């Protein structure tokens, strides 16, 4: 699977961006708040009518209908709020398009949703809803997963489980792109895009990215024993 974006742009949020990625890898999108991570995901997912062209395996995504898009890509938005009290099981079915009880049961098993499956999704906690919506996104076995902050609100067990699940998907050829803030997650990824000021600033292996000076400049932090600290130059005294 190949994903090729040419001149993809959103007014005031994303400068014209070129990107070429192949399936089978986990790609992290990191960057400061408002830098353009979500905008890039939204433009690639076709949520907004962006300038430029996104092609998957040569097919122009914007011209494809629902059935084809389901097989190609899925997008998990950052918001986990759904308006209607639909059962978790039915939310997954909506992601599938056609009824396939075996696949739904498989996903319920994979994301350990058995006890939640028949409860209305808006009665679940944010972390539980995230798992249901991930199952929805994965349901039709799309070749490209665009996930906005999938690890937010997950308990430690699920952070680890989800990493393993995403790695399995990548091994089977899926391209997984994840916007994230928690830099501790970075070492699980194959490749990291640093996005700031509406443009991709760096595209490196995670370890090289973190070690670079440009990374420290943009994030205004530097590596410290066991984590991160604000760079001396960026420290502010409290009033």
């Amino acid at each position, binding site marked *: 699977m190949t994903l090729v974006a040419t001149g993809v742009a959103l007014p005031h949020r994303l400068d014209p961006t070129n990107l070429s990625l192949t399936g089978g890898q986990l790609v992290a999108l990191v960057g400061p708040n408002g830098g353009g991570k979500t905008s890039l995901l*939204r433009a690639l*997912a*076709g*949520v*907004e009518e962006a300038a430029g062209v996104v092609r998957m395996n040569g097919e122009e995504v914007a011209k*494809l*209908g*629902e059935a084809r*898009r*389901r097989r190609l*890509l*899925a*997008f998990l*938005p950052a*918001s986990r*709020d*759904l*308006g*209607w*009290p*639909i*059962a978790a099981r*039915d*939310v997954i079915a*909506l*992601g599938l398009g056609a009824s396939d009880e075996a696949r739904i049961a498989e996903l319920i098993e994979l994301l350990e949703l058995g006890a939640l499956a028949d409860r*209305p999704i808006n009665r679940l906690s944010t972390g539980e809803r995230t798992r249901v919506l991930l199952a*929805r996104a994965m349901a039709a076995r799309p070749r490209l997963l*665009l996930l906005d902050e999938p690890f937010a609100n997950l308990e430690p067990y699920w952070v680890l489980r989800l990493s393993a699940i995403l790695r399995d998907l990548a091994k089977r050829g899926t391209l997984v792109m994840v916007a994230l803030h928690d830099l501790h997650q970075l070492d699980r990824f194959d490749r990291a895009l640093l996005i700031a000021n509406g443009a991709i600033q760096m595209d490196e292996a995670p370890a090289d990215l973190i070690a670079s000076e440009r990374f420290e400049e943009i994030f205004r932090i530097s590596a410290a024993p066991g984590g991160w600290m604000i760079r001396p130059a960026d420290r502010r005294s409290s009033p």
Partner: protein
Amino acid sequence: MRLFIAVLMVGLAALHLLWPLAPLQLDAELGRTLLVELRLPRTLIVIGYGAALGISGAAIQALFANPLASPDISGASSGAALGAVLGGYWLGFSQPLALAACGAAGAGAAMMMLLVLAGRRADSATLLLAGLAISLAAGAATSLALALAPSPFAFYDAFDWLMGSVVDRSLGQALAALAPAGIACGLLLRRAHALDLFALGEDVAASLGHRPRRLAREIIGLSAIAVGAFVAVAGAIGFVGLVAPVLARRLTRGHPGRAMIPAALIGAILLTLADLAVRTIPLDRPLPIGVLTALFGTPLFLYLIVTMRRSVTS
């Protein structure tokens, strides 16, 4: 359950058309005339209007992702009433199809205003306030138009009709509402799947190739035609468009789009029952059907608000 509702619907329709049995006991010619000229239009309007309110109510609720949205709360009904009153003054009340068009235009204008004021996915408070403002403004403008009525007869005609009445409508009037509303409802039903996907959020639906803005305009335009056409013929009838979709979603496991067909059946049943009650209650002057639906609809509406508040606070 759905079969039961469909059977109930057909049974009620037959009951509404044939009961009381007087026409059948008259001589054949007179009985036939009575049935076709008097009973049939009323039955058609009651069933069609109820179904149109159910479908458009379900579609509007799905669009705004809010069970409080509906033709009446959104100001569509009062907008349609204003449109039809103005159209009636200008064009006369004798051209049903033109009146239906004016009603649809009024409803469409009101709902476009709601969309601009509240936006899609508005919270309940914004939605209700914006809808209330539009309803009040349209109501005041209608009152003004009535006050400036060219003659007292025009005033009484318009007033009676505003309260929602299905009495003494001709077959032509019934068809003038049924034809455009039927087409609009058919087109709304074709959007059931898209509206179900919108339950996953606008962004997810858009990533699957649906266009939220276009869908919003389509839903509003089609609902305006469906509701406006009937308001122009039978006046504004409240609460059916609010209550029917709420009941219908209990049959569709909460899915808002596929609730449109059950909502149509339930809306038609509710309005048929209300009209049967109107015909049965012995009063000197027939009760406008809109008064009856409001009497029964208000408690249900209040119940809905209370349960929504509970689910938010708990």
